[in-house]
């Protein structure tokens, strides 16, 4: 009797003890363990980020058509309506351009300028017209000039003016204006392509433009190198500073607000191309074929040196051939000598071969050679424009462009560039943010610090404000917002602290915790089970 009571008491004590320990473990232990092994993660605006791709991409452009053709005076409203309709047709692309079209007659000042100068001297007219009122970005003036010979031509000026010749027939003029606006002034296709490439999608057909040009960056390092393999024979000199100041500075200044072009120059001695050119016996000339060109750059590049910044580098090399390989030409696929004697390498820079003028054997060595700034700058300016994606247009019979010459870049080209870069930045940063969000969601081990959270939020803000500016036509502010957005998103994505915390990869977490918790938990659980059984057992007779 006493024994069974003793046993009962013991069993009861055991049960209570087991349950007590179990409860403490579960209520206090588990939350404590959970909290202390947590990873610090700042809350990111995941919803906002995924919504970013839902925001429709639009941009607004102002078009003002000014008619100087008396024949069209009555149809101005009609022109306006039809033009608006034409331009607003859905293209089915990702980005939608919106045009605000106004059509009016010319005012007195404009008239007088036209009367003073002949229609042929459009560039002068263009210049004077642009002085009439302050230049506004993203607002394009199209002057309809009566055509003499019935042919329809378009002349695109350096500033914001374009001149379309009209023959009075609306059904020809309106499509022409529409086409001019879409393809030449605003270049909708290039906007679409920018977005397409920024998203990283690749078309099946490689696209030269996207492969050739460098991405937007807040700064670029341009280095001009004069390579002299035989300084003992040729005493080469160049006035690169003057050349840069004269020919390159305008371009640099135009783009100063948007991107910094840092320019360096150097002279290299005793570096050769290391590839033997082929000899044309008859003319006693040397030449490289187009397929040899890819191998020329690497030997020079190894000695070029790198800059200390993280900006993309563009190298422009002037190569003076050695005496036994002079003169040296480049021939294209068809065997025709290339007039510029130069080639460019996508996203890298360009090379120009400068042939030394003839000299006789009797002249004392070293023979002085002067490299003219104008010659090299012509070539390099073209290459820079290509590499920076400044979209050099080409003239045809229908469309003439006022040559840019020393200015380096026309205002409309800057607008196009700004618009393209803006969308490129936006697409890239949206992409970056979305992949960052996906990455952080996928890998739950990474610590997300506060400053990353603030960068991401800043990026989201700037993207939204940039899109808003674009929809109201404020190109410059939109561009600057997009610049800030891409800087913030890149900074957030490439932050050095976002390295995966793989101390315990998920599948090895078990291996870490089992030796720790299993030895305690097994007796605990079995004891608890016994205790529960016992409780049930004691309850049963009571309910009988």
């Amino acid at each position: 009797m006493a024994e069974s009571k003793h046993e009962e008491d013991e069993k009861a004590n055991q049960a209570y003890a087991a349950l007590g320990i179990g409860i403490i473990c579960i209520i206090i232990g588990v939350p404590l363990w959970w909290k202390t092994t947590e990873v610090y993660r700042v809350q990111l605006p995941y919803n906002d980020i995924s919504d970013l791709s839902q925001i429709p991409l639009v941009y607004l452009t102002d078009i003002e058509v000014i008619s100087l053709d008396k024949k069209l005076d009555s149809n101005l409203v009609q022109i306006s309506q039809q033009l608006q309709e034409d331009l607003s047709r859905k293209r089915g692309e990702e980005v939608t351009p919106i045009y605000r079209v106004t059509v009016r007659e010319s005012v007195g000042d404009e008239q007088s300028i036209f009367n003073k100068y002949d229609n042929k001297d459009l560039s002068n007219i263009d210049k004077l017209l642009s002085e009439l009122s302050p230049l506004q970005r993203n607002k394009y003036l199209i002057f309809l000039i009566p055509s003499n010979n019935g042919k329809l031509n378009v002349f695109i000026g350096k500033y914001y003016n374009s001149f379309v010749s009209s023959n009075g027939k609306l059904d020809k003029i309106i499509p022409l204006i529409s086409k001019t606006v879409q393809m030449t002034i605003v270049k909708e296709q290039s906007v679409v392509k920018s977005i397409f490439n920024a998203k990283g999608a690749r078309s099946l057909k490689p696209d030269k433009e996207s492969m050739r040009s460098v991405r937007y960056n807040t700064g670029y390092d341009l280095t001009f190198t004069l390579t002299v393999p035989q300084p003992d024979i040729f005493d080469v000199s160049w006035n690169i500073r003057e050349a840069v100041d004269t020919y390159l500075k305008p371009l640099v200044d135009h783009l100063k607000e948007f991107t910094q072009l840092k320019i360096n120059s150097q002279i290299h001695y005793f570096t050769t191309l290391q590839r033997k050119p082929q000899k044309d016996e008859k003319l006693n000339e040397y030449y490289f074929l187009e397929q040899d060109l890819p191998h020329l750059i690497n030997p020079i590049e190894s000695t070029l040196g790198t800059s200390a910044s993280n900006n993309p580098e563009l190298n422009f090399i002037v190569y003076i051939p050695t005496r036994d390989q002079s003169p040296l030409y480049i021939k294209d696929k068809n065997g025709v000598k290339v007039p510029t004697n130069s080639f460019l390498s996508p996203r890298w820079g360009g090379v120009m071969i400068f042939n030394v003028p003839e000299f006789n054997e009797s002249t004392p060595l070293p023979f002085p050679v002067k490299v003219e700034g104008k010659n090299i700058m012509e070539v390099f300016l073209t290459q820079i424009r290509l590499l920076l994606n400044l979209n050099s247009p080409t003239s045809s019979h229908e469309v003439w462009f006022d040559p840019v010459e020393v200015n380096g870049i026309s205002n409309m080209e800057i607008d196009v560039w700004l618009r393209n870069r803006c969308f490129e930045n936006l697409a890239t940063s949206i992409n970056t943010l979305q992949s960052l969000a996906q990455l952080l969601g996928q890998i739950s081990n990474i610590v997300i610090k506060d400053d990353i959270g603030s960068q991401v939020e800043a990026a989201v803000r700037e993207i939204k404000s940039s899109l808003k500016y674009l929809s109201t036509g404020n190109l410059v502010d939109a561009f600057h917002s997009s610049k800030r957005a891409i800087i913030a998103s890149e900074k957030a994505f490439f932050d050095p602290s976002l390295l995966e915390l793989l101390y315990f990869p998920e599948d090895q977490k078990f291996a870490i915790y089992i030796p720790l918790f299993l030895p305690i938990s097994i007796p605990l659980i079995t004891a608890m089970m016994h205790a529960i059984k016992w409780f049930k057992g004691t309850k049963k007779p009571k309910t009988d």
Partner: protein
Amino acid sequence: MGVLSDPKQRQKIIKAVTKYNKLLCVILYLGGVFGFLALAFEPFHAGTYFSENALLPGLVENEFRLDSEARSYNEELHKEIKKSDKTLPKDWMFKQFQNLGLDTYYHNFSLHYPFGMPRDKAIPGQNIYSILRAKRASSTEAVVMSVPLRHPGVMPNEQTSGGIAVMLALAKHFRKQTYWAKDIVFVLTEFDEIGMQAWLDGYHQTKSDYIISEDLPGRSGPIQAAINLEIPGEAVTSYNIKLEGLNGQLPNLDLCNLVVRLCRKERAKVTLNKQVDSYERESWDSYKQSVTTMMYMMWNQASGTPTGNHGLFHRYHIEALTIQGTQEEKPYKTLGVEQTSRLVEGIFRSLNNLLERFHQSFFFYILPSTRGYISIGLYMPPFGAMIAACLIKISLFQAIALWISRYEEEEEDKETEDKQSDDESQKVTDAVSGIVSIIPVIAISMLMASLAYTGPKLLTNVSHPFRLRPEDSLMFGLLALFCASVAFPKMFNKKKPDHAVLHLDWKLLKCIALIVQSLTLFSIALMNISLAFFIGVAMVPVTTLIVPTTSRSLLLLLLVSPASLVFISSIIAAWLDQHNDISQLLYMTWGNMKHCIFMKLLDLYLFGNWTYTVMSFVIFPCWLLFWAIPNCNTDIDV
């Protein structure tokens, strides 16, 4: 009472153990001993392999081409030694090293003899050593090549002049090479181990009590490995590897494997304890050979004395071994100094590849042959089984004690309170008397032990006035102590009329003694398995099965006393030395016993060999505890 588990389960196990007690003990003991010995059988243990990947043994080709130089060094040295038959030509050796352009130094030390006549007289000694600095490394590590200088009058097979010639030839060759990452230190020691200890003391700036060494004039970095050479001047037929060090420490197994592999590359015969590996693997003969090799190694290890100069390095965590050249009667192939030089060159090239100290392979092992090893993981379980026999016995008494206490608890519940108090008080007095009765035994055994440990100093102090040799006085004094301690239990049997009878609770005493014995044997086994094994094999069966009744147990216990163990080991040593005649055997045994105790004490003082300490301070009191058991009164229930 268990909180999370049920105590009833435990009771069942204890009851089972109690029932089959004796049987279990015997099975465990025999199983342990035979299991241990069976490990020598080739399929039961693993083959040797290289753990340290950095060694790359034998991969690089030998570049030693100075064969003629080695031979000429050997001949010149032989001539120089012949010039005097008392001293060695140290100056000649010094000059040879110096001529090679190495940093050569003399190292002076003096030995203060711990016993013996003039205490203040110091015996001077001199080592020679020279350092070859690595050309492209910064002296951060070193490897040592050492040769003990032996007196010209020793037996021809104990000569080491060949080793000196090898050293000189190699120094000349090594000096020209650029691929050394460690410095190489060449050491020639006088008085064998004493000189080595002096040099090591000077190098590591430690101090010994009786060896006074001056500071080393030149030094290198921490030593990673050391090779000791004992090669005689004449051609040898095989290389014997000696591994055992002070207190039974062994070098890393990789070092031994390295030497074996390189000997094979040279096609030289290599032996362990002068035992050759058998050719077959799984036959009875091969097993006998393996067991013999194993026993020789354990015998050497158990004594705790280093078998060569290498044994002193182990204390500083430097792996070292000795390569001894042995000559057989009928040489099949002879190996001259050239071959030895190539062998040592290969060893040093491999040691050069090391980046860290040896740490990968085993430090505790037994070698039954050069191609197999028994690791600690293999030999501990049989040894543990052997000792477990003691522990099972303990459980018997523990069980009984528990059982008794449990019964008493239940009785408490049943009876009334008055009875409880009576019983309690009675049991209390009994229990108290049980423990109290044991304490005097323990006290006396500790007293005897401390006398045995500190006695020798006193004994040797008085040896000189009595014109006795120190060995003799030690021997007789310790024998006297032993007889005194054998007699002490008689004290307990005296009954004083007015005191209560001293009931010696022999069960409790046996429990305590068995616990002490197991503890000590396990502790010794961690360091020196052989010593623990031999003591265990002898003592465990007797001490476990001792009961206070028969006189047969008295005799058996006497047979495993420390004194008789020393006697038995001396007989075995004499028998190993091939003295088969009985009277000569006994005479040699007596000499061996004296020598053994004397040398052990000397080792204790000079090098810190704790075999004597263990025997006198640990085994002896333990045995005394057991000795009390058969001698006590057996009035109480068994």
